[in-house]
């Protein structure tokens, strides 16, 4: 039967094609030999997909700015004083875990890059962590907020966690609320909504603890799914709860929508604290003077000239301002890497050790990691006169007193 033999043939063709394709994928791995003319730095970042919005603000522009500046200065300085320009290898992880993992493998074993910059997001940094560890690359995880940072730093000795954990932020918030309550500005009730994603859950779990410890009443506490666009029901319920403080552990689109919808609903809590996005340049651009008094995570000491100068450079090179929370930390982590390389060369083991133990002069001032974690962070900020200034921890130098209660939305 001819049909039969044709099928068999096709089966064989199929197999052959599969094998060929497999072999093709082994494309000769290029080893760089000869004298070094550059330092290869690679990263995988979400250029498309769900995470592109966040990565495109906090992470990618700072990588680009830093590379631009370093190469503008002739390259990375080596211990012998020579300079090697940075050669960038960039992949799009398409917001998929498996892609991150494979891209890191590719950077480490095929591209043989000298250093790998971390991806964006808590989940992706964790997915990448075992690989950084296995291939011996230091991982300067910035956009990852996790209370398990100490545990991770111990598990993967070359991992560095730069943005603190949920407790840091919620305890700072609880302190402010306690102060304000004691001052008689606000009552002791808080309404909280949180996004049902790693970030939101981490923070709300921490907040429940911190608020309970501080004796603050959580009178409204709900979680909403990622992708929610209409917050009116939640704002109405929060308003009805009688709490003077409204807290949203939210993602950027949610933060923007909440801001608009709170105005429409004429909802005027005395303390308005929201999550990621409050510090985005577009937030200030869209809301004008209405942002005055709104609080969030992060913040900047505007008296620190280095930071303000960095912001100006970023704005000029990228075409938009950096956000007021993670960006500067990202930039700071790159400066630390640059300095560590300058001190110890391209030996990744040595660089990791230097990052762990050294003291660095960066845009944030003098920085030294504690147990591979950056602890000198601003955990709370507030929009005051067009700047998102740091208000917590209040005992740190450069902190500004919060202006509360927040003025009601301007009349429409």
């Amino acid at each position, binding site marked *: 039967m001819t049909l039969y033999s044709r099928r068999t043939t096709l089966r064989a063709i199929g197999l052959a094609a599969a094998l060929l394709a497999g072999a093709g994928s082994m494309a000769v791995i290029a080893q760089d030999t000869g004298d070094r003319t550059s330092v290869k730095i690679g990263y995988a970042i979400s250029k498309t997909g769900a995470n*592109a*919005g966040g990565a495109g603000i906090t992470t990618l522009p700072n990588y680009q700015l830093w590379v631009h500046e370093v190469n503008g200065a002739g390259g990375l300085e080596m211990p012998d004083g020579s300079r090697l320009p940075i050669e960038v290898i960039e992949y799009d992880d398409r917001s998929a875990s498996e892609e991150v993992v494979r891209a890191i493998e590719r950077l480490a074993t095929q591209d043989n890059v000298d250093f790998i910059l971390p991806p964006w997001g808590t989940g992706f940094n964790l997915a990448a962590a075992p690989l950084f560890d296995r291939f011996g690359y230091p991982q300067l995880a910035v956009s990852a907020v996790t209370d398990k940072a100490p545990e991770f730093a111990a598990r993967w000795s070359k991992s560095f966690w730069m943005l603190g954990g949920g407790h840091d932020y919620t305890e700072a918030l609880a302190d402010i609320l306690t102060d304000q309550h004691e001052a008689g500005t606000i009552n002791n009730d808080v309404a909280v909504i949180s996004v049902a994603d790693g970030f939101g859950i981490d923070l709300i779990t921490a907040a429940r603890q911190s608020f309970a410890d501080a004796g603050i009443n959580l009178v409204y506490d*709900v979680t909403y799914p990622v992708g929610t666009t209409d917050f009116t*029901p939640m704002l109405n319920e929060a308003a009805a709860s009688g709490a003077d403080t409204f807290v949203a552990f939210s993602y950027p689109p949610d933060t*923007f*929508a909440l801001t608009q919808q709170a105005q429409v609903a*004429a909802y005027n809590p005395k303390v308005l604290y929201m999550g990621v996005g409050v510090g985005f340049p577009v937030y200030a651009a869209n809301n004008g003077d209405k942002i005055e008094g709104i609080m969030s995570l992060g913040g900047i000491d505007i008296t620190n000239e280095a930071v303000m100068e960095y912001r100006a450079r970023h704005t000029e090179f990228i075409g938009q301002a950096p956000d007021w929370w993670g960006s500067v930390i990202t930039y700071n982590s790159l400066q630390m890497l640059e300095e560590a390389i300058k001190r110890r060369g391209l030996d990744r083991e040595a660089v990791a050790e230097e990052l762990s133990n050294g003291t660095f002069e960066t845009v944030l001032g003098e920085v030294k990691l504690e147990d591979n974690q950056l602890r000198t962070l601003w955990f709370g900020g507030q929009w005051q006169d067009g700047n998102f200034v740091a208000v917590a921890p209040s005992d740190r130098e450069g902190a500004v007193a919060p202006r509360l209660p927040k003025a009601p939305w301007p009349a429409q």
Partner: protein
Amino acid sequence: MITTLITGLVLGGTYALVAMGLTLQYGISRIMNLAYGEILIFAAFAAFLLFSTLGINPILGLAIVLPLAFAFGYLIYGVMMQPLVARSKKSGTLEVDSILATFGLLFVIQGVMLVVFGSNYTSYNFLNTGINVLGTNIAANRLLAFALAVIIGATLFYVLTRTRWGTTIRAIAVNPDAAPLVGIDVNRTARFAFALGTMLAASGGVMISMYQTFNASMGVVFTMKALVIVIMGGLGNLMGALVAGLLLGIVETLVATHVDPGLTLAATYLLFLGVLLWKPSGLFGKAAGR
């Protein structure tokens, strides 16, 4: 309760507006357009650009965006879909082909947006003022979107059911093979319906841009939501899209207010699955699926 209902209706109005264009494209032109949401987002970016650079308010912006969207849809159908439709007369593979081709189109449009607009979240403020409706504060921009949905829905419904021209469009949906027998140019009419659907997508995009944050990667979300509504209402049925959209809005708001905001999306899909199990071809669908 009234507050919940009004908020829900207004939310549902947007859903309905977005879904109606898709139901035109699928029901009449028979193109399962996976790039629908990308067109919507593109229009949102266009409205944003017009507003932020030229100061043209989005309502006037519609006058610029809609004709362009129509032309774009007209062009895409002619260049991309027409050959597939012609080919499928023999092979009957239009559904699969259109899914694959518009999946490609999705990537192209998304890629262009990423290059042109970047991946950042974008939003601007327009008409974000509260308007009191029966004791409930509703944002003017949402109210406007709702009104537009109702006007477009009603106009389309009237035209499709009460005019000869509308009847010819429905005739294509019902029996494309018989349409030439009564002098209908199927190709031209399907092309027109596709372009009209594209225009509706764009109008949805402009409306949404007034009050929602968007970025270049978000199109799929809208495509899927629109598909859910279209299917729930019954394919190609405008009335179905309208009712299903409003229903969804109300259910989401009810659940958010009285049950748990964490379950709004789950409720959406539960409702959707429930409707399909109860009526396998949607609320207003034919007794037997196609």
